[in-house]
């Protein structure tokens, strides 16, 4: 019980309270403690990233081991992982001559043009990552055609605001209302788009932001006061 419940609860409350106080008391010892906690957090976050990678390999490995459906593709994942990890961790692997005056040192080697890690980042990671997101353009277009229906007042307002913003932000759309004389220039589509996202949008977003902020504050308080214990697997 001590290891499972009380120690993590003590860590959470102690770290939470000290961090909170360090906002108001930036002087030592509390300020210094808060600074150290920031450093610790960043280091622990790095371990979490490595844990994530280890977990992925464990899952993909078990998929191969148990010959689950499409297990062959898991080999691709693991091979991709191993090659990237090896060339990333081993600072001696190079694909060409180092620039003059540059020594091979661990750490900065990952962003050298001669590093195979950099090559993988630029020619494998970049196109894959960018194209995955670019696919969304097609799906957003498809959704525009098939799903966005002006069924009621709310949906109509949403669609109209979307259309005005879309047209108002590009010169081709702005051409539609360029003919308007200056006297009614405020009705030009780019002006209306600017107005929508500066005022009504800001109002809507602010309401959401304030709502979320109050939610975050209350959740944080519940955590720091030890009321919220769901991370311990408790209700």
């Amino acid at each position, binding site marked *: 019980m001590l290891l499972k419940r009380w120690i993590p609860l003590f860590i959470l409350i102690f770290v939470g309270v000290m961090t909170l106080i360090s906002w108001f008391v930036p002087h030592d010892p509390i300020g210094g403690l808060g600074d150290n906690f920031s450093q610790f957090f960043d280091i622990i976050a790095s371990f979490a990233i490595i844990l994530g990678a280890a977990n992925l390999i464990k899952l993909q490995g078990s998929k191969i081991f148990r010959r689950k459906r499409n297990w062959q593709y*898991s080999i691709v994942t693991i091979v991709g992982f191993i090659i990237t990890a090896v060339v990333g961790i081993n600072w001696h692997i190079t694909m060409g001559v180092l620039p003059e005056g540059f020594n091979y040192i661990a750490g900065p080697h990952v962003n050298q043009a001669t590093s195979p890690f950099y090559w993988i980042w630029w020619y494998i990671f970049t196109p894959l990552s*960018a194209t995955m997101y670019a696919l969304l353009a097609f799906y957003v277009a498809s959704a525009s055609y098939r799903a966005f229906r002006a069924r009621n007042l709310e949906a109509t307002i949403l669609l109209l605001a979307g259309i005005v913003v879309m047209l108002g932000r590009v010169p081709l759309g702005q051409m539609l209302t360029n003919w308007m004389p200056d006297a009614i220039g405020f009705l030009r589509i780019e002006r209306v788009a600017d107005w929508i996202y500066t005022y009504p949008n800001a109002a809507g977003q602010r309401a959401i932001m304030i709502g979320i902020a109050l939610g975050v504050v209350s959740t944080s308080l519940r955590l720091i006061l030890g009321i919220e214990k769901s991370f311990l697997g408790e209700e």
Partner: protein
Amino acid sequence: MIVTIGIWCAAFLTLAIFSFLYKDNPFYRFAEHLFTGVSAAYWMVVAFWNQIHPNLFGNLWWPDWFLRKWPEFTYVLVDEVHVGGEILPGNALVDGSLSPEVLASAELVNIISPIYYIPLVLGILFFTRLIPKISYLSRWPLAFVMGMAAGLRLYSFLQSNAMMQISSTVNPAPIMGQGFLAWLNFLIVAIGVFTGLIYFYFSKEHKGVFGQLSRVGVLFLMLSFGAAFGYTVMARISLLLGRFQFLGGWLGGIFGN
């Protein structure tokens, strides 16, 4: 040569992902799985060299023989290099300014910050998650992360996202002396925020005047979502544009245009 292979590789992977638009196929799956593996390793490598190596290892104790064994790794762990009364930074191990003979006789000072064994232990405890029997120990680092996030966010959200937003909604000082339109817009924002908040208040049934106000709030939220939709479309098209520009460059390279 390496660049050419790289460009072809990138073009193949781009087309492999795009092929999903026609239908699911082995090329897409290959690319998707490769992405998963490469990105996991990429994050891990970058986290290691940018945080664990300089910020954690640099504060721990290391034996002298280790510090001398791989200078291109330990230059971050060595805080001072003492050579003939002169104190140089750890980088002197690798910047070529000292000969191997001088380095062999130099004193390597590794300043230790014992408190950094705390994140080391907590970080390692994260991995107990992979061992079911003792996985509960991973709650310790998790508790640290959650405590820190709660302490930081409590104040920052209250300050930046609640107080400052409320203050800027109700404080007319910035528009003092401005025309009718500025006041009208100020009023519109104030009404929007107020009615929007009413919509999010679920402790009272949305009926009567309260219900009407909540409905006005919904309209503001819809305008906001509409603007967000417009901007999302814009963002997605821009990303597609980037990929097409790349493919255009690749095809241009092949056909010499």
